[in-house]
């Protein structure tokens, strides 16, 4: 059992849970994730390890409540516990050895960018982060990223930072030159837009993919993605890949597989049949 030690709302639908998982806290590396299994009957959900405190033995999970399963998770309060957390899974981020890095985070993807920026900073790599959200209250992890380097905040409505998409800010920064590697994590259209910016410039770009997963150990193949024409399993070969070779259309499409089920689950949940509600 993994106790919730702290809980914090980061944006209207994004919650941070600090959860006891001492071994994972000790050895996790940037880019890695865990599979969380709340209780018998719950889904197994992959979540990036956004941060860790090895002394306290906790990891930070940043959860966007989009469906029933994620809503069940964010309904947990400190003192309650998650039945199973397996990890750390996936390959660690390929951190550059020298040069300058640009990290682009959109929405909850900003939480995934955070450990990457941490890793880069630890290596002495200067990091510029561009993060964004719809409006001010949707911007997350800004203070944490400010400790690791320069940060540009963008909001769609201009209520905070500069008005516009993260890609607009990225375009300007890349045009100025001097960026050796881009790490981009966010909604699929955002990652695709960043990759389209960096491709003509020849700037290598790593993206983190979030396909549907079940086991997270390479056993089911549900997480398969196409990269450079090859079928790879995101849970063991990724989740980070060379963005210039990722088939984003295919990813986007497969992410829609259970849309109808998600709606049904949410309806059942609203009708009072939520897992946590039953406890």
């Amino acid at each position: 059992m993994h106790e919730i030690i702290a809980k914090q709302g980061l944006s209207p639908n994004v919650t941070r849970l600090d959860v006891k998982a001492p071994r994972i806290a000790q050895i996790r590396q940037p880019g890695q994730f865990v599979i969380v299994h709340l209780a018998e009957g719950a889904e197994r959900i992959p979540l990036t390890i956004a941060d860790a405190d090895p002394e306290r033995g906790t990891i930070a999970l940043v959860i966007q409540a989009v469906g029933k399963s994620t809503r069940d998770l964010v309904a947990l309060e400190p003192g309650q516990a998650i039945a199973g957390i397996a990890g750390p899974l996936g390959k660690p981020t390929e951190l550059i050895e020298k040069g300058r890095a640009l990290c682009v985070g959109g929405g909850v993807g900003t939480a995934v960018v955070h450990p990457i920026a941490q890793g880069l900073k630890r290596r002495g790599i200067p990091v510029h982060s561009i993060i964004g959200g719809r409006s001010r209250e949707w911007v997350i992890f800004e203070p944490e990223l400010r400790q690791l380097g320069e940060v540009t905040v963008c909001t769609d409505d201009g209520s905070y930072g500069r008005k516009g998409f993260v890609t607009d800010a990225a375009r300007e920064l890349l045009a100025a030159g001097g960026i050796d590697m881009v790490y981009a994590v966010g909604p699929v259209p955002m990652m695709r837009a960043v990759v389209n910016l960096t491709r003509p410039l020849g700037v290598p770009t790593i993206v983190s993919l979030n396909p549907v997963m079940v086991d997270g150990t390479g056993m089911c193949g549900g997480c398969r993605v196409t990269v450079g024409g090859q079928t790879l399993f995101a849970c063991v070969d990724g989740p980070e890949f060379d963005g210039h070779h990722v088939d984003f259309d295919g990813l986007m499409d497969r992410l829609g597989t259970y849309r109808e089920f998600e709606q049904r689950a949410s309806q059942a949940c609203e009708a009072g049949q939520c897992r946590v509600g039953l406890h």
Partner: protein
Amino acid sequence: MSEKYTTRERLKIDRQKMSEQDPQVRNANFAEVNLGLQEKVALLEAERCLQCRDPKCVSGCPVMVNIPRFLDLLSEGNLAGAAQSLLSDNALPSVTGRVCPQETQCEIECIRGHKGLPVAVGYLERYVGDWAQGHRDQVPMQVAPATGRRVAVVGAGPGGLTAAGELARRGHEVTVFEALHKPGGVLVYGIPEFRLPKKIVEDEVSRLEQAGVKIVCNTVIGRTYTIQELRAEFDAIFIANGAGLPVFMNVPGENFKGVYSANEYLTRVNLMSAYQFPRADTPVLLGRRVATVGGGNVAMDSARTAKRIGAEASMIVYRRTRKEMPARAEEIHHAEQEGIEFEFLVAPVEVVGNEKRWVTGLKCVRMKLGEPDASGRARPEIIPGSEFVIPCDVVVVAIGTRANPLLTATCPELKLNKWGNIVVDEQGMTSLPGVFAGGDIVRGAATVILAMGDGKRAAAAMDEYLKTAPRLSRSAAVAV
């Protein structure tokens, strides 16, 4: 052999039948198909054994279960004795009695089978195994005094669980590390409830726990701990992490929505209980027409599962003929009874989809059988111009699995063969001293009983190894 019958009378006893749920009822539920034998029926079937002096059935069994001995005790009504005898050869008889391909192992060798039907060894094994589960106190596990040795087992499938039991019995302190949230391996995520109720596996696991085995789930060796880290902490290790890497067909359209590996399909339904959605949270696409590619147990399980979760048509697509199908005979028979349709001599060449990339069909070619290949089975050849489309909305790919490289990739010291399987010596020891391996990770996708046999043999070899192996000074890095 009881005194009740003469040999002549004994030869007159017909093979007893297993009662089953009605096919038209069971193809809509997940309860077990086979209902088990009544005690008097089991005893009568046991009387059919002729107690041959050179029992061929025993050599047909991969772990050489002393079949005549337990049947003899059973026929006398000595159930505790029969159970004791059987369990000393086979740790999981309730499981193997249900899933072993008896018709190609023990029963095919049965002398009675030369004229007429063989003794129903599988049914009786199941009967005695189930009896033992219900009468734990009469077949206690004898645990030797503690040796002070710590042993790790990787993977809680049949191979790992068998090794764990054998090692615990010998007084070693055993910890099993399992990647998933539930122990059992293929027995819980792959083989469906209607063939092997989960309760049986849970019972076996609790028996191991009572004998002092510690089972640590959600722990992925190669990620949470490496083999080298375990080596610093445990005096010996047994790796039985299975062959859980699904093979796909490599045809166009395989990433359309509605294409599953059998592993994913069965895991969603079995381990994650997707058939209870939305009471369970994990969904599975409910195809109206489901095409399953393959001819093994995995394919039968998938096709029969599809029917149970509501498919109007569930089809098996297989490149060869019924005769070559590697599935257990009983599973093929049950599938036919349940209304599964079979397309023989057919091979998929493409998954067809609509503009939204949902599966709408499986494009196939017809095959004919040519010369035998390396496996001795006739090699299927394509009949030119024979393309056709099977309309379907879900495709399940059940054409095999390979060694999962996750663990081995993080332990380069382990010698592998060209398929990525771990290489072991006759003792089951890998290229790393004190590290043993068995089951599907060594053999490639094989069978439950072979994995169990490996676990048992390796446990004996590990016990020998531990008699002389140096004692570790532990760092306590692996906190369990």
